[in-house]
């Protein structure tokens, strides 16, 4: 959209106190029968997941909370890896495009870090390596224009509507929703400002984060109560983000736009790319040297020493 169109749309939205629709058709096809939501909460700056909600977006999520996310043992992420694998595999088997819903692009960055950390990590379990590979496929697919597999709620909403606030504020999903679906009787200018006080970028609210950080020392020393409190805070935080994603998805489809004529072609392309990438691991983790048979000259020498 050109700059003048964006400015005029923002001015109209500001005056009408409601986001202004700037597209006549949806840029993505309708969700398949099952769409998969992923909502991570990271330790700020560490890019380590401390909680994750995932699963069928139409149902209550499954959650994993990690009281000690900096531990080297990442086995607790395996249920997520298995669920993601089940979903992607079943969708590809059914010759459908998987649909992954994420709240914002920070979540995509976290999936990218999972790919870096586990895909070729020889210390990681096969489940985690596969999860790393599948995360890479998701991140790569998201980079294609017109792709139909990854739905980043904030980006999608911004593509279809324009708010009456500065674009830089649209990155906050809560503030964005205050403009797209303002609560009855509220002024979105004030409501968005209020919501923006709490960050929405895959992290806990500051007070909860501080509390969790303080409790972690006690939890490491074996304090069971501290662990339980951390888990409760994380559970609450990730559920809040999940609810926001569900609301964003509902709000998005409630825009009730027409389906674009280009979508079937884009769906086909996305399905072909995803199907190939999810069934062909181009650079799997190299196997440890000791697992390979020794070089030929060593085998000859060994045979010779055994007198054969």
């Amino acid at each position, binding site marked *: 959209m050109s*700059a*003048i*169109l*964006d*400015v*005029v*749309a*923002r*001015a*109209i939205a*500001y*005056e009408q106190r409601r986001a*202004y629709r*700037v597209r*006549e058709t949806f840029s993505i096809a309708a969700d398949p029968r099952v769409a998969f939501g992923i909502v991570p909460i990271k*330790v*700020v*700056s*560490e*890019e380590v997941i401390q909680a994750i909600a995932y699963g069928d977006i139409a149902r209550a999520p499954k959650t994993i909370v990690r009281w000690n996310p900096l531990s080297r043992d990442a086995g607790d992420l395996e249920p997520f890896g298995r669920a993601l694998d089940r979903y992607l595999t079943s969708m590809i088997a059914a010759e459908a495009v998987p649909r992954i819903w994420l709240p914002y692009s920070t979540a995509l*960055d976290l999936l*990218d*870090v999972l790919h*870096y*950390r586990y895909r070729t990590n020889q210390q990681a379990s096969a489940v985690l390596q596969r999860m790393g590979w599948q995360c890479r496929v998701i991140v790569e697919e998201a980079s294609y224009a017109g792709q139909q597999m990854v739905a980043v709620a904030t980006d999608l909403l911004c593509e279809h509507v324009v708010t*009456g*606030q*500065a*674009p*830089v*504020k649209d990155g906050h999903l809560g503030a964005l929703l205050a403009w797209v679906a303002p609560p009855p009787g509220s002024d979105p*200018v004030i409501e968005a*400002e209020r919501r*923006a*006080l*709490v*960050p929405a970028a895959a992290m806990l609210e*500051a007070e909860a*984060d*501080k509390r969790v*950080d303080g409790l972690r020392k006690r939890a490491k020393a074996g304090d069971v109560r501290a662990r339980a409190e951390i888990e409760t805070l994380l559970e609450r935080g990730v559920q809040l983000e999940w609810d926001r994603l569900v609301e964003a998805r509902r709000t998005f489809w409630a825009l009730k736009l027409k389906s674009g004529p280009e979508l079937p072609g884009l769906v086909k392309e996305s399905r072909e790319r995803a199907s190939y990438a999810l069934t062909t691991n181009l650079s799997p983790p190299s196997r440890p040297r000791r697992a390979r048979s020794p070089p030929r000259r060593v085998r000859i020498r060994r045979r010779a020493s055994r007198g054969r």
Partner: protein
Amino acid sequence: MSLRSSRGIVRTSRNLRCVLQAAMVVERVSEPEFYERVTGTKFEGEYGERASARRRGSKFESNLTTNNAALLRRALAPIFGYDVEAMVVRNFADEIPGPPHELHAMRLTRMRRILQDLARDREVPHLVIQPQLRIQVGPNLTDFEHVSPDFFVLNPAMRMYVPGEMKSFIVRQGVADGADLDLTRRQAAAQIVALRDEAGRLAMHGRVENRALFVFAQPYGLMPARPVIEVLNQEVFEVERAVQFLREVRARLVGLRASTATPLEDLIAELPINYQDRCIGSCVLATVCERRFAGRARVLGDAASDLIGPDTDVGRLVALINGAQPRTPEEAVFATRVRLAAAALGYQPRTLRRATG
């Protein structure tokens, strides 16, 4: 947290027309406290770095600088052609432990001695951890800000140090997050300006290049990624302008207080602001300044301000779209432009809507 040291200079360099922000830097205010003094209410947003971020940053730095900065030496040696084992390191954090307000002066003295040795062509350490510099931001001897680079590494080609920053940001495919980089680059630019100032005392300012080194983290933990050297001409230019701007604002504050010592919060009406998108999330007064522009194009963002002017009345703009009569020839041109844009957006003007029922 206050706007002391290079933090204030960096903030000023990002908005070189906001006199209020520069005044806050000059006065070294604590932002949340100042917000309370201005508005009478507590600042409800998040302020300052989170504990986990601080911890990761210091862990990364200590990881790189322990064992005579073994990891840092290994990362830097190939860039300058040094033998890793032959590199001489001085770590001021180890040499001068103690309270921060004393450290600055003592570390600065030692750094100046090293620079003097460099000027006399004597042997100097290849790597200095936690060196200290200062930038003069006013006419008095006490009007300076401390600048504390993470390290200096000697560039043998120039016989001058290059400032370096260790940041625990994760690098993927050799690239760190752009938002993280802007502040880091400006921080390094402030270090270049301060180093050039110090080198200038010894007639070596020509040897200081607008280059800095960045050591970021790999995605796998706290190991350093391959260091990056960047040329920071633009950032250095803006930091130099920021220093000059701070001097001007300091003089302006002195003028405003010529008769009575008025507190800064009471001078706000006299100090021009320059509210922009960047203020959001970086200045505690962003919402306060934004409210001054309620109903004007400024609240719609930088692009809107640049395109139609920050003071354009949004209500008038929409009225023109809806068919209001332009008052001037300029407004008539503007009306045609915005009506065309509104039509392209499929907007139905209110008058038309009424007519069509």
